[in-house]
């Protein structure tokens, strides 16, 4: 009898040792594009080689909004992943979701993670009420790409790009070319409307160090009002509207691609877009036989320069009530933020590294010397002052605000409203959306 019991116990212990199931964590991300999917898979593979007891299940879950939809369905059915990538403007919704673990909690428990290695601007964006909620992963900001060859043709100095709104508008007009029948065959400036345009608006507010929302952009307490219908906001509306109405800029339509197409095909001399495009812009300039320049966002003259806001997405840890899985997730997160992982990610995609040491290492290796456009994208961010305005706004109503701002631009471009009216209308819409969201909490 005893022998049987002992034998049985030994077997149980043996099997549990041999078959100690490695812990599996689910990671959902929105990084489409063949290279990026591969890059993330490879990073996970590398991590699993270093940590054979952890299995990372990397799952592509559609666009940012698709990922949010899937996340909501999963949370409501009680089966969320361990780690999920959520876009910048989803920050407040995630904080309010009640299912996440603020990254700050993990950092406070783990002395091996130095929070100061995070690029201040990225860290600032995801810090609300003094607490870091998620880890930035793919960070970007907007820059203006310009065609140096066309600058030269127009008699402008390609190495002295405009820095103020006024210079920018004057140059845009000089860069506009019409054919004999009066059709514009080359525009000074182009941009995508829809979500990008609303994002640019937010950026130009930060450039003027102006807040979008009250309570210090919602960082000292829940934002209750939009505050962008002011001088600063009006300058931006006029900036875009003047160029559209005098024909020196072309609205490329919703999304990013049409505007890029116009710029790459050299039908426009300047383009505002995301820094994560730098990779493909450099290639396009090479094959299109023009010389590419990158400039900082211009600012209205006389207004002190603030900075730009970090865009992109961050990684959120979900509370699974399973310490083993949470620890494994945290380990994986630390790996993704490490110097080498960030270098792989950044050089492979065009997003800038969120680890300061990755930037330093890349610089010593001569990467930025060889690729000046990459330097500009990083510099613009590092030269930004970290203020509530440049940290960006947080509110759960952000998607509605973007729609309202873009609609307001449309109303202004089609002359249904004056810039002043459009701006005020957008703010009223934003206030309604904010009040509606806040009434839940």
């Amino acid at each position: 009898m005893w022998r049987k019991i002992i034998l049985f116990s030994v077997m149980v212990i043996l099997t549990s040792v041999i078959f100690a199931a490695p812990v599996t964590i689910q990671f959902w991300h929105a990084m489409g594009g063949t290279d990026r999917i591969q890059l993330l898979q490879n990073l996970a593979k590398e991590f699993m080689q270093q940590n054979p007891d952890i299995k990372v299940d990397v799952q592509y879950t559609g666009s940012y909004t698709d990922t949010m939809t899937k996340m909501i369905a999963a949370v409501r059915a009680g089966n969320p992943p361990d780690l999920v990538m959520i876009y910048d403007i989803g920050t407040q919704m995630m904080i309010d979701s009640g299912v996440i673990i603020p990254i700050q909690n993990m950092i406070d428990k783990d002395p091996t993670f130095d929070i100061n290695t995070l690029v201040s601007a990225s860290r600032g964006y995801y810090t609300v009420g003094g607490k870091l909620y998620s880890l930035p992963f793919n960070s970007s900001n907007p820059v203006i790409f310009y065609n140096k060859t066309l600058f030269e043709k127009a008699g402008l100095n390609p190495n002295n790009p405009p820095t103020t709104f006024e210079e920018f508008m004057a140059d845009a007009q000089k860069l506009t070319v019409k054919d004999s029948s009066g059709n514009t065959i080359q525009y000074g400036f182009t941009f995508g409307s829809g979500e990008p345009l609303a994002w640019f608006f937010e950026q130009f507010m930060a450039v003027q160090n102006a807040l979008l929302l009250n309570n210090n952009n919602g960082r000292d307490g829940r934002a209750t009002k939009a505050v962008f219908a002011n001088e600063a906001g009006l300058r931006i509306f006029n900036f875009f509207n003047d160029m559209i109405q005098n024909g020196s800029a072309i609205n490329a339509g919703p999304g990013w691609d049409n505007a890029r197409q116009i710029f790459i095909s050299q039908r426009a001399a300047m383009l505002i877009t995301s820094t994560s495009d730098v990779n493909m812009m450099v290639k396009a300039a090479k094959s299109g036989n023009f010389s590419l320049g990158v400039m900082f966002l211009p600012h209205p003259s006389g207004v002190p320069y603030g900075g730009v806001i970090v865009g992109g997405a961050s990684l959120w840890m979900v509370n699974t009530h399973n310490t083993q899985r949470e620890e494994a997730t945290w380990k994986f997160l630390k790996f993704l933020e490490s110097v080498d992982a960030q270098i792989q990610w950044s050089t492979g995609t065009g997003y800038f590294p969120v680890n300061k040491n990755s930037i330093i290492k890349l610089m010593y290796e001569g990467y930025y010397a060889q690729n000046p456009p990459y330097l500009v994208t990083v510099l613009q961010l590092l030269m930004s002052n970290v203020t509530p305005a440049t940290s960006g706004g947080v509110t759960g109503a952000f998607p509605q605000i973007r729609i309202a701002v873009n609609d307001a631009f449309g109303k202004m471009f089609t002359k249904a409203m004056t810039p002043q009216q459009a701006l005020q209308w957008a703010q009223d819409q934003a206030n309604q959306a904010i009040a509606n969201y806040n009434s839940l909490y």
Partner: protein
Amino acid sequence: MKKSQKKILKTILIEIALIAVSIIILLPIFLALTMSLKRPSEVFVYPPKIFPDSFYVQNYISAFNSINLGRLMLNSLIMSIAIMVGKTIFGIFSGYAFSNFKFKGSSLLFAALFVTLFMPAEMIMIVPLFQIMQSFHWVNTYWALTVPFLASATTTFLMRQHFMTIPKELEDAAKIDGAGPMRFLFEILVPLSKSTIGGIAMINFVYAWNLYLWPLVVTNSNNMATAQIGLKMLTNVESTSNWGVIMAGTLMVLGPTLILFFAVQKLFVRGIITTGLKE
């Protein structure tokens, strides 16, 4: 002699018209085709270039390999065929019930079904539907991909509309011959309705093949993902995508549908099937 010449002339005119119409309609797809054969650097040149410099087949290879498109297409095929078969057969049954039988509550039941035509189903119901899947333990299985779509008002409504155009005399004759309602359906109605059934099967297939948001929400692994999710995987967020590869993927995903349609359209040959009694 003269008559046959006239016929040839007519054929030529029709062919010309068909070619002209096809060119106009296919322009966007032709654009996709040429784009799929361009190098990344050729996609955005100005003036827009119609033909690529050389056939850059690499786009097809990288679209197929980078996302394991073969597996994804297989999943899509399993899902679409199951939905096509289920929807079509159940639709024939219920359409037949509404067109050829008088029974208590028939108009009420029909109205109850008809209303669901107008429910933007996958859109409004994702979350509650997903909760059902979770409680059935169907998440990440073929069940979740197929069962909720196995029957629809669309097919029922069409089959009813169609069966009502078939002369009642046929049914009376069949009854006299002693054929039961099931035999009448399969031996007379279905053969008479080949083209309509072919059409609806085709539509149901395309519907399932193009589902995107539901498969995305309900699958959690690349082994269960579908081709439409694969196409989305080819698209970059926040930066320019490689349009050559995306279009190559799009055309490959279009392939099975077009092959199937080419086979099915043979059913639309005018004048071969007759409506029996009326002639």
